[in-house]
């Protein structure tokens, strides 16, 4: 570990990335970013994303672009890094005139492609973005990101298909659609990851792929919600079994609002031994909260009176700011990682921070699939993480 850091971005690479072997460029760049963040010094960076420029597939155009960045290599005040995917990054202390000049030249050459292929970044503010670029250059993103689904939306889910799926769900096994991930505590320079609790949820997407192939659930959200309610009931029935009861000691579970006051939940809650109360976190999405705010507020008060914790689930930055933890009575906020978080405007970030619970350990960053997510989380003061990257790390540890 790299000692104490203020903004704490780069040690993520230390903590999570495999050894980088002979690839000096990206490692040095990562180290530079780390030092910049640690020292809080300002730097300007130019990133030429050559792989994203369609025109650069023609060799002569590619050569012209690389020729255009040559002046940067001749400047003693700049350092230039060549990444394995052909990208070029130049970093210097502001005002770095050669960077500005080359940027202007490239803008002229790239035209509309500049939006994708060229970035001017400020450090340490945009450290997470630059680290993301390093990961991408190393092929890390490709390894952890599934191929984007290009499948066009099918016809909407309808009553007939839903009735069939409900019958299948009534008798079938839920296990195939169940996703268990461990929420872990991971703090900068603070030793290994510490497992905190299990997040257990049924993937409606997997379930729909199996039971409702080709149908668009998003086009019939209320039918999808009815399906989710049935899934809730099945989950609660399984958790109510004696051998599962002890897992409730450290568990988070997403449920719909009507489920929280349903006979099934009340029965489940009545069975819970006093010792496991306080270990159960019920996650409720912003859409569920807003669909019937009065029913949510009642269910929340009931849950808290029974010793359970209530979390705002799968929140985007906007949702977390719209439903501030204090006002909404949320014990926790489960924030969904997207690269958009690293690109938040200063004022939106301030709004988000003000809306999150102030005590430490009350925010989970979920769907963490790349180190940049953890880097951003640390910058935002988050130490609880969940996602594919965390699971990979746990397995390899």
């Amino acid at each position, binding site marked *: 570990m790299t000692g104490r850091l203020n903004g704490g971005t780069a040690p993520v690479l230390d903590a999570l990335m495999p050894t980088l072997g002979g690839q000096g460029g990206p490692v040095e760049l990562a180290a530079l970013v780390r030092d910049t963040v640690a020292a809080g010094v300002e730097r300007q960076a130019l990133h030429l994303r050559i792989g994203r420029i369609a025109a650069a597939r023609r060799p002569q155009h590619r050569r012209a672009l690389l020729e255009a960045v040559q002046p940067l290599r001749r400047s003693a005040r700049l350092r230039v890094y060549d990444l394995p995917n052909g990208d070029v990054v130049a970093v210097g202390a502001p005002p770095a005139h050669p960077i500005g000049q080359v940027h202007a030249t490239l803008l002229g050459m790239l035209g509309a492609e500049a939006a994708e292929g060229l970035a001017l970044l400020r450090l340490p503010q945009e450290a997470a973005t630059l680290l993301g670029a390093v990961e991408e250059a190393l092929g890390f993103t490709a390894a952890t990101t599934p191929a984007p689904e290009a499948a066009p939306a099918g016809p909407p889910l309808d009553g007939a298909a839903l009735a069939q799926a409900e019958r299948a769900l009534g008798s079938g096994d839920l296990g195939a659609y169940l996703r268990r991930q461990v929420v872990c505590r991971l703090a900068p320079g603070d030793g290994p990851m510490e497992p905190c609790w299990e997040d257990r949820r049924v993937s409606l997407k997997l379930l729909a792929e199996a039971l409702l192939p080709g149908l668009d659930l998003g086009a*019939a*959200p*209320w*039918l999808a919600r009815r399906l989710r309610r049935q899934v809730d009931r099945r989950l609660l029935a399984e958790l109510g079994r004696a051998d599962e009861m002890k897992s409730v000691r450290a568990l988070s579970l997403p449920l719909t609002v009507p489920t929280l006051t349903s006979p099934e939940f009340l029965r489940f809650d009545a069975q819970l031994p006093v010792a496991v109360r306080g270990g159960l976190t019920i996650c409720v999405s*912003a859409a*569920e909260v807003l669909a019937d*705010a009065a029913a949510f507020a009642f269910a929340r008060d*009931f849950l808290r009176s029974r010793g359970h914790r209530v979390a705002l689930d799968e929140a985007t930055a906007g949702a977390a700011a719209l439903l501030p933890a204090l006002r909404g*009575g949320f014990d926790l906020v489960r924030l969904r990682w997207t690269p958009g978080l690293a690109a938040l405007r200063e004022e939106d970030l301030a709004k988000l921070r003000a809306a999150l619970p102030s005590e430490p350990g009350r925010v989970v960053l979920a769907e963490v699939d790349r180190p940049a997510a953890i880097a951003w989380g640390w910058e935002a003061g988050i130490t609880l993480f969940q996602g594919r990257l965390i699971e990979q790390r746990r397995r390899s540890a």
Partner: protein
Amino acid sequence: MSGSSLRTPAAGNGRLPAGRPEQPARAALCLRFGQAPSGTVQPHHRRVARALMQEAALAQGGTVAETPGGDLLLSDSDAADAARLRHTLDRLLAVVAPGLVELWPLPDGAPRVAEALALAARARATPAPEPAEGLPALGRLLAELPLERVVRRQTLLRLAPGATPRAAFLRLGVSLPAVAGQVGPLAEDPDLLRHAAEVLAGRLLRSLSEPAARRDLLGGPPPAPLLIELPAAVLPGALIPAGTPSPQEEPLLVALVPAATAAEPEALRSLRAGLRAQGWGLALGGIGAAALALMAPAGLAVDWIELAWSPALPERGAAAALRALDPARLLLAGCDGPEAMDWGLAAGIARFGGRHVDAVLAATRIAACPEAAQCTQRQCEERAAAAGAGGRAGCRNPALLATGLPRPGAP
């Protein structure tokens, strides 16, 4: 917990506990749901309260019974436990009505307990299973249902100090109670009911783009911009009748989307941009006191917010969120009496809808209409709400009916 677990169950079969001074104090608990204002007690309130009382009964040996009037009774419990339960229930049910829970110390309260137990109905059967019968045929039913039966039109009134009242919007929407009347037992599942309404709203949007159907739905040229209740799911891909793209002026078509659409404010922003590009405005609907108490709504990307009136709206919980909103962007829906409008006007709101507004408009039309000798106010209200020629039958002044309220100075 006291040593009461050593007691033998006393009132298990309605038998009354005898007063034994050497025992810890006992009490019964009565939850007066029957006295709550009608419509405030929801089934989930009852289920949760019953579960909590049942738990106390299991630990203490009393029984839980429900009277035909809806009251819940815990016949016998340790007095301290009963007091704690009362506190919990009072707190949880404050949203329904204050002071619903009564503690009846025993043995003094024994006659009241006996009376309530005698009244008590058999424990209600467990809730009916989710209705699935008819689900496969729902799609066809919704495709064939005449829109006129479920769509309601309503004029929103614009009131401003010193200005002549005029129509602010003509609001079109699918009425949930009307849909419930058409789809039968499936409507018992609120999700199916809302799904049905959503499918019908999609049909409403398509109908509005066909001139003949549009005339039939509206009854004539609308007196004000259209405010159309539309779920976001039907919006982007749907056939949106082209409005006039004029971002400077107030759009003539406004989509009124449900509150849950704001769950991703980022998506709301792009929805608004997409609508604006087609000349539409965007309004967020169904924001009541409970939602405001949870929200920090400043900066939401919408042109209008429709508040749902309830007597809780003026209370403290909603105040912070209301302060963050520009009253000129607010519509107050569900005004069922003058107190709603009084509060709204005092809060700087200028646009109102609801039963009270419907009644005021009908009375105004009748006073101004030369053909109204035979009409009652109620008839005029119902005809104005109808979205089809059938529902308007009997009106001999359809032009006035379509405009909602008479133009100033017109006969």
